[in-house]
C-alpha cells in the first residue's frame, strides 16, 4: 500500500493500541480547531477575540444556551437520519431535501386541519412531517431497488428539486399576501410547539429529538431490523446468504431515515420559524451527516455532537458581530472536522512507515 511519490507504506498496526474511540475524535477536533484559527487569522481578525465571542455566543447566558439547544434539535434528527442509513452503508445524503419536505408536509397538514385541539395538532404535525420526509426517502429507495439509480445521486437531486419546490410554494400558493417577503403566513398559535421556559424561545423540539434518538438507538441495537441493518453494513455480500432481503431493508431504512429528517423540518416549522421560507434550513441536512460521523454513527452520542455543532452555529452569530468573521466560516469548519474525523479513524487502525 504505497503512497505514491513519497515511498511511504501504510501498514496495519501490529499491536492495536488500546486507544479509546474518543481519542482520534478529540485529535481531529483539535486539528480542526487549529485550521479554523488559521482561517480566522487569515481574515485579519484577532483570533482570541473571535473564539471568545464564539464561546460566549453559544454558552454566554441563558438565552444563548437555549438558542444552542434549539439549533441542536434539528441536528440531532438529521444526524440520526444519516446514522441509520450510513450504518447500512446506504448513502442517503438527502436529509436536507427530506427536512424541507417534512416542513412542507407539516405546513400542509396545519393549514388543512386548522381546527384541531393542541394535542391532536401536535401529533398531526409529527406524523405529517415524518411521512412527507419518509416518502421522499422511500422514493429514492424505490429508484434504487427498481431502476438501480444510485441513492447518493437521487438524494442529491431531490435536495435541489425540493428546494425549488419550496421556493415555488412560498412564491405562489403559500405566499403571504400581507408581506413583501416571499414567505408563507405564520402558522396559528395552536400549531406552535409549547415553549419549555418563559421568556425564551426554547421549544419542545429538543425533547422530540432526544426521544427519537432513544427510539433509533433501540431500533438499531436491539431489534431484528437493526440486526439486518448492521449485517448489511458489515458485509453486504455475506448478508445475502443469511437470508436478508436487501431490497426490503433498503426501502425500510430509507423510509425511516427520510422520516426522521422530515421530523426535523416539522419541528423547525412548529417550534421556531412558524412559517415556510426559502432560507428555512441553514444546511441542517448536511451538518447532520457530520454530526453523525463525529458520533461514530452511534445514536447515543449524536445529541452530544449535535450540541457542539449547534453551539458553533449560534456562536458564529456573535463572532460575526464582535469580530467581523463571516458566518460562512462555520461551514468550512464543519467540513474540516468531517475530513479530519474520517482520517483520524483511519489512524487508529493503521500507521505509516517509510520504506
Amino acid at each position, binding site marked *: 500500500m504505497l503512497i505514491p511519490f513519497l515511498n511511504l507504506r501504510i501498514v496495519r498496526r501490529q499491536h492495536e493500541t488500546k486507544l479509546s474511540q474518543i481519542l482520534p475524535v478529540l485529535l481531529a477536533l483539535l486539528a480542526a480547531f487549529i485550521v479554523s484559527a488559521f482561517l480566522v487569522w487569515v481574515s485579519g481578525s484577532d483570533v482570541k477575540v473571535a473564539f471568545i465571542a464564539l464561546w460566549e455566543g453559544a454558552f454566554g447566558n441563558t438565552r444563548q444556551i437555549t438558542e444552542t439547544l434549539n439549533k441542536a434539535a434539528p441536528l440531532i434528527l438529521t444526524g440520526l437520519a444519516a446514522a441509520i442509513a450510513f450504518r447500512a452503508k446506504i448513502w442517503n445524503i438527502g436529509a436536507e431535501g427530506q427536512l424541507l419536505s417534512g416542513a412542507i408536509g407539516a405546513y400542509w397538514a396545519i393549514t388543512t386541519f386548522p381546527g384541531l385541539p393542541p394535542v391532536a395538532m401536535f401529533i398531526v404535525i409529527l406524523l405529517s412531517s415524518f411521512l412527507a420526509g419518509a416518502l421522499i426517502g422511500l422514493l429514492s429507495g424505490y429508484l434504487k431497488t427498481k431502476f438501480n439509480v444510485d441513492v447518493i445521486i437521487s438524494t442529491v437531486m431531490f435536495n435541489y428539486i425540493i428546494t425549488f419546490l419550496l421556493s415555488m410554494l412560498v412564491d*405562489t400558493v403559500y405566499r403571504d399576501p400581507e408581506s413583501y417577503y416571499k414567505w408563507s403566513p405564520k402558522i396559528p398559535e395552536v400549531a406552535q410547539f409549547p415553549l419549555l421556559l418563559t421568556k425564551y424561545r426554547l421549544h419542545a423540539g429538543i425533547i422530540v429529538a432526544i426521544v427519537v434518538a432513544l427510539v433509533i438507538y433501540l431500533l438499531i441495537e436491539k431489534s431484528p431490523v437493526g440486526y439486518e441493518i448492521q449485517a448489511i453494513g458489515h458485509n453486504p455480500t455475506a448478508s445475502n446468504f443469511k437470508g436478508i432481503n436487501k431490497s426490503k431493508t433498503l426501502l425500510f431504512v430509507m423510509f425511516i431515515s427520510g422520516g426522521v429528517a422530515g421530523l426535523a423540518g416539522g419541528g423547525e416549522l412548529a417550534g421556531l420559524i412558524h412559517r415556510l421560507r426559502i432560507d428555512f434550513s441553514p444546511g441542517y441536512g448536511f451538518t447532520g451527516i457530520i454530526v453523525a460521523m463525529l458520533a461514530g454513527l452511534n445514536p447515543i452520542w449524536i445529541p452530544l455532537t449535535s450540541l457542539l455543532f449547534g453551539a458553533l452555529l449560534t456562536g458564529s452569530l456573535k463572532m460575526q458581530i464582535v469580530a467581523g468573521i463571516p458566518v460562512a466560516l462555520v*461551514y468550512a469548519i464543519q467540513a474540516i472536522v468531517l475530513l479530519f474525523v474520517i482520517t483520524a479513524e483511519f489512524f487508529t487502525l493503521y500507521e505509516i512507515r517509510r520504506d
Partner: protein
Amino acid sequence: MLNDLLQATMLVSLFSAMIRIATPVLFAALGELIAERAGVMNLGVEGMMLTGAFVGFIVFDKTDSVLSSVLLAMIAGGMMASIMAFMAVSLKLNQTVVGLGLNLLASGLTFYIYRISYEIEGTLEIPRIETLQNIEIPLLSKIPFLGPILFNQNIMTYIALLLVPVIWFVIYRTRLGLLIRGLGEYPRAVDVKGISVNKYRYLAVVFGGMMAGLGGSFLTIGSSGLFVQEISAGRGWLAIVIVIAGNWQPGRILLATLIFALLDAFQLQIQAVGVQIPYQILLAMPYIFAILVLMGSRAKSIPPGSLGEPYSRE
C-alpha cells in the same frame, strides 16, 4: 417569411446557447470519466467546480489575466483532487464520505474567502469581471445555421469540444489509455506488470479535478462574470450523472451533456419570452431530468469493473 426568419434566429440562439452552457459540464464530465475509468469514484466534482469558479473569478479580478486565472483554477481543482486521492486511494477511506466532505469544504471556504475579500465595513461589494469574448472563426462561421452555432464561441468552449476526440483517442488508441482502462477494470493486472496502481490512480483523479476546476472557472470568467454562493449549482453532480448516462464513453458523454445543456438553454429562452410557468419548475427541470435519465439508462450501463474499490495487494 419574416416568421420563418424569426424562428431560424431563435433556433440559432437556442443551439448556440446550448453549446456555451455545455462547456463547463463537459470539462467536468470528461475529467470524471478519466477518474472513473481509472477506478476512482470522485464525488467531489461539485466542490472542485465551485473551487475553480471561485479561484478563476478572484484571480481574474486581481490580475486581469485569463490565462493565469484559468491555470490557477485548474491547480486549485487539482489540489482538491489530490486530497480526494490521498484519502480515497491511499487511506482507502469511503469515497462517498470523502467526496461529500470536499463538497462541503469548497462550499464553506469559497464563500468565507469571498466574504473576507470583498466585505468592507460589513457591506459586501459585488464585483463584476469581464467575460471571455467570442472568437468568430473566419469562413466556418459563415456556414448558414451551423456557423454561428459552432464557430462563434469563446476559446474555452472550443477547447472543451476539441477535448472530446482527444480524450477518446487517448482512452482507446494509446498505451496510456490501455493503462487507465486496466486500472478501472482489473488493477491487479496493472500491478503484476510492475506499474504502480495508486500512482496512476492519483494522476487520473488529479486530472479529473483539474478539468472540474477548469469547467468551474468557465462559470465565472466564461459566462456570468460574477461569483455567487454555490454558483456551481449542482453542475458537478450533473457531470457525474452524465458519465453514467454516457456509459463511460466520450462520444455519448458529449451527447448527454448537449441534451442537458439544451434543456437548460430551452428553459432560459422560455423565461426570456415570459411564459407563465413558475420559474422554479424550469430551474428544477435538469435535476428531474437527471433522475429520469438514470432510470432509463442505469440498468443498461456498464461501469468499469473495479469502480470505487480501493486496490490492495493482499
